């Protein structure tokens, strides 16, 4: 069955609230990366919900949902979703496509992607080098090294004076 493209001007699609027992404590996460991320949020007292919402992305002609996306975390105080992934860059195309589609269909929804390199840097920032090795592996560590030793010349970009508000 051929999929149907959605007109962005049509009435907004309502995201679906996920049923089932929610994960409310970092120790409940089966995936260690999500567990560590939730612990960091808990540490800084950032309220979070795990996959509270599913966004339909594609429908068949009968109106049945063919493809959907449930971002990992929702931060209610900031009204923002966070998708955390430790996928290798080569496997990220599908994820990027879903995120683009979500932004097209739900323009008021804020979603941030924390990818493998971002997460490796976050772990490094908190001195979690051992955990970084376990959670994201050598490829991401190599990528993070680029940050330490950039190949391109980088200079300060903002030299104008005065407040930025």
């Amino acid at each position: 069955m051929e999929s149907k493209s959605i007109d962005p001007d049509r009435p907004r699609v309502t995201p679906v609230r996920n049923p089932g027992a929610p994960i409310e404590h970092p120790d409940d996460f089966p995936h260690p990366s999500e567990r560590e991320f939730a612990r960091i949020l808990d540490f800084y007292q950032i309220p979070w919900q795990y996959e509270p919402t599913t966004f339909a992305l594609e429908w068949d002609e009968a109106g049945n949902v063919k493809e959907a996306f449930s971002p990992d975390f929702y931060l209610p105080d900031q009204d923002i979703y966070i998708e955390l992934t430790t996928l290798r860059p080569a496997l990220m195309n599908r994820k990027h496509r879903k995120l683009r589609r979500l932004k097209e269909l739900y323009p008021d929804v804020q979603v941030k992607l924390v990818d493998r390199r971002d997460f490796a840097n976050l772990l490094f920032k908190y001195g979690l080098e051992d955990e970084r090795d376990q959670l994201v592996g050598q490829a991401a560590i190599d990528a993070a090294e680029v940050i330490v030793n950039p190949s391109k010349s980088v200079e300060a970009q903002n030299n104008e004076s005065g407040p930025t508000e």
Partner: protein
Amino acid sequence: MSLDQPNSATAETLSQVERVILTPEQIAARVSALGQAISTDYEGQDLILVGVLRGVLFFMADLLRAITIPVKYDVIAISRYGPTSQTRGVVRLTKDLDEHIEGRHVLFVEDVIDTGLTSNYILKNLRAREPASLRVCALLDRPQHRLIDLNITYKGFELPDLFLVGYGLDYQQMFRNLPYIATLKAGALGRLAAAHDLQARGDA
């Protein structure tokens, strides 16, 4: 500029510095401009600068001297998330403000804002004390790392995704005293971490 500035860092540590991103002159010019803007905006108001230890000390000291109106300052310190059970759990204040800020105009000063997690926590804490106003001043902004959005009223430099040291920025407490902001050589972190472990074992 030459990397071998006289300071207390060891030659071995200094040799890990690769390239200066912001010179002392660039930093001084920007800090001076920020100080002038703050002095204009807060003219006639009861202004207090609040910084979070430890990296902000260098920026805070220079910024205070660039402000030309009466101003006070205070510092706050919080525990940091880390790998041990002692550094997990929930963030806590390890040093509270000595000054009362209720009804006063507070400018929260940070050396660098990246994820926004620390700043968000401290801003929430400060806001609960009911200051007359609360704004943010950051020397360095790395918005590509941001998880929690913040409104930075006074911003020094917006920098790309680099690990930087100097002028208060550290790696395992090293490099803070460099007068410039620089990148480290490839593999430097691994070498420094190994040296740090060896030294720690030797001290034990």
